[in-house]
């Protein structure tokens, strides 16, 4: 069985290599297509803010939020692709898309009931979702002129957030874990007015493309870093969600780092129509 599997893999590699050895002419061609993929997001913290301030009389020394890591914040993206190859290896492209970025964090509070006795523990999981339109401009360099061609790309994009929402889950144990199935949840509140609606991101990534005469497919991973902070500083405490009052929640100052994994299907058009 292992020998059959190994043989299949070797055959596949041989076929792919055989195909990739063929020269694929790309210069002066336009490519149009569609893309779909996954977005992983991580806030890069610049300054912490908290509505609740620790004092010497507090049970906790701080009320810092604990952010979840990049690969636990999964969103999606889908959109269009358009590119033009100046040379067989250099091309300029744009991939306007709708994308959803998610990020979440946890925090907790603890108070004592000195009249009835006992302790009050509250732990919260805050989940945010930002939907935006991304309009990037990228320069791509293909390492080969063959059908299978790895590439790197870099550029900038304009991100326009059009909707954001937020939901809070809570339980009564401080254990760094809130089970969304059993926790008490808030309603979903619109979070859009708290955002800087327009943002600029720098992009960089790599991928691999497969070119045929009548179509092309690529798989790319692109890191993007938003140059503007995501939260509007003048509206930080405005409490449009109602969650500052209810959950003592206020957003930190951060920039969003995202990793977009996109599959793109393209069709080529010759410059000379």
């Amino acid at each position, binding site marked *: 069985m292992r020998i059959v599997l190994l043989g299949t893999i070797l055959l596949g590699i041989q076929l792919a290599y055989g195909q990739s050895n063929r020269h694929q002419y790309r210069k002066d061609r336009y490519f149009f297509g569609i893309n779909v993929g996954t977005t992983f997001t991580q806030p890069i913290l610049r300054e912490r803010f908290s509505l609740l*301030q*620790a*004092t010497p009389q*507090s049970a906790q020394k701080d009320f810092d939020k604990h952010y979840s890591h990049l690969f636990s914040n999964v969103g999606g993206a889908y959109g269009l692709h358009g590119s033009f190859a100046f040379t067989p290896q250099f091309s300029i492209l744009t991939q306007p898309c709708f994308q959803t970025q998610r990020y979440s964090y946890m925090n907790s509070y603890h*108070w*004592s009931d*000195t009249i009835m006795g006992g302790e009050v523990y509250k732990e919260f999981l805050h989940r945010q979702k930002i939907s935006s339109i991304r309009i990037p401009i990228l320069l791509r360099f293909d390492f080969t002129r063959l059908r299978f061609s790895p590439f790197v790309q870099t550029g900038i994009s304009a991100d326009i957030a059009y909707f954001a929402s937020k939901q809070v889950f809570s339980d009564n144990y401080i254990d760094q874990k809130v089970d969304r199935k059993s926790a008490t949840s808030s309603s979903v509140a619109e979070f859009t007015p708290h955002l800087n609606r327009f*943002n600029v991101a720098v992009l960089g990534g790599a991928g691999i493309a497969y070119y045929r005469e009548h179509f092309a497919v690529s798989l790319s991973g692109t890191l993007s870093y938003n140059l503007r902070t995501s939260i509007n500083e003048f509206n*930080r*405490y405005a409490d449009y969600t109602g969650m500052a009052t209810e959950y003592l929640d206020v957003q930190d100052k951060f920039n969003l780092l995202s990793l977009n994994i996109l599959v793109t299907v393209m069709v080529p058009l010759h410059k000379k129509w």
Partner: protein
Amino acid sequence: MKRRNLLWVIGILVFFFSACEKKDKSSLPFVKIYDDQNGNRSFAPLSMCKATLDNGYFVLSAYDGWRIHLMKMDKDGDFEWNLELPEQYVNAVPSLVNIQQQLYLVCMDPIALNTRILRIDEANKSVTSISTLEEVSYPVHAYYNGSDLYLMSCPLSSQMTVIHKVSQALDTVVKIGALSISTNVDDLLLKHVMHTGKHYPFFIRSTPENNYFVINAFYNYSFSTVFFDSDLQFSGVYNGAAMDGGIASVFPLGANQFALARVSGENVFINPNANLNPTAIAMATSIEAQGDAELDHEKPVLIKQINISSKPYLCVVASGSLQLSKSNLEELVLQ
């Protein structure tokens, strides 16, 4: 052609990067809640003022009845330090006083029932008692008009409201003016100072011309707004409706014009430019004002002058009624 393309690219890049962060964020709005592990402790806010050594703020509040809590925070509202004053100091009046760039608070000795003036030492994060005024009992307000400190007191069982002018050294009373209440208000006064009942808007203000003092105090079976002349002699009064109505806040504008908020029944009425006669004897309800049924008549009303883009505005801050607006957000009315 290529140069034109290059200019386009540079133009697009300039547009993109001009949208990026600018660094001037010197005075951003904030909301802060200062935590205490004791979930049953409650604080009654009394006064807030700017610090003199930096751009921070001091907040004076009462806890456990009439115990005194003083807190310092920075310009962004972040906590710096706090003090729970010893039990020998209670009943802080709701006004932190800045006298020649030095902050003071006025409070009471719970045993001797006389008044203490404490100096706030911002550098050493402490308070020091600088004087005891034996003749001033149950202080309810302090006011510094730029040259002299005035205290209002309401001694138990005296049925009197007394205004005291304090010496420059802040250690003796140099002049007094008195009002007869003609009825016993001990119960109301004790609930006021212990924060267990109705909290009365006692205040002393002076007109810009310094020819009159406007005093909100118990007077003649009511809680009223009394005019004193500069020699602390009675001049006129706008009577409240017994102990439940009257003027809640006043901002003297000069030339007998006043911005004011008054309470009648369960409604708050506001007039940003009312003409009051300092020698009149009238009812506060006779002052024309616009009512706002959504404001909470039991909560304090503040009238402050603020500058927005170098233009002066009067700002009336009141609390929304919980029953009507389903929120307790403060309402801002700008003139």
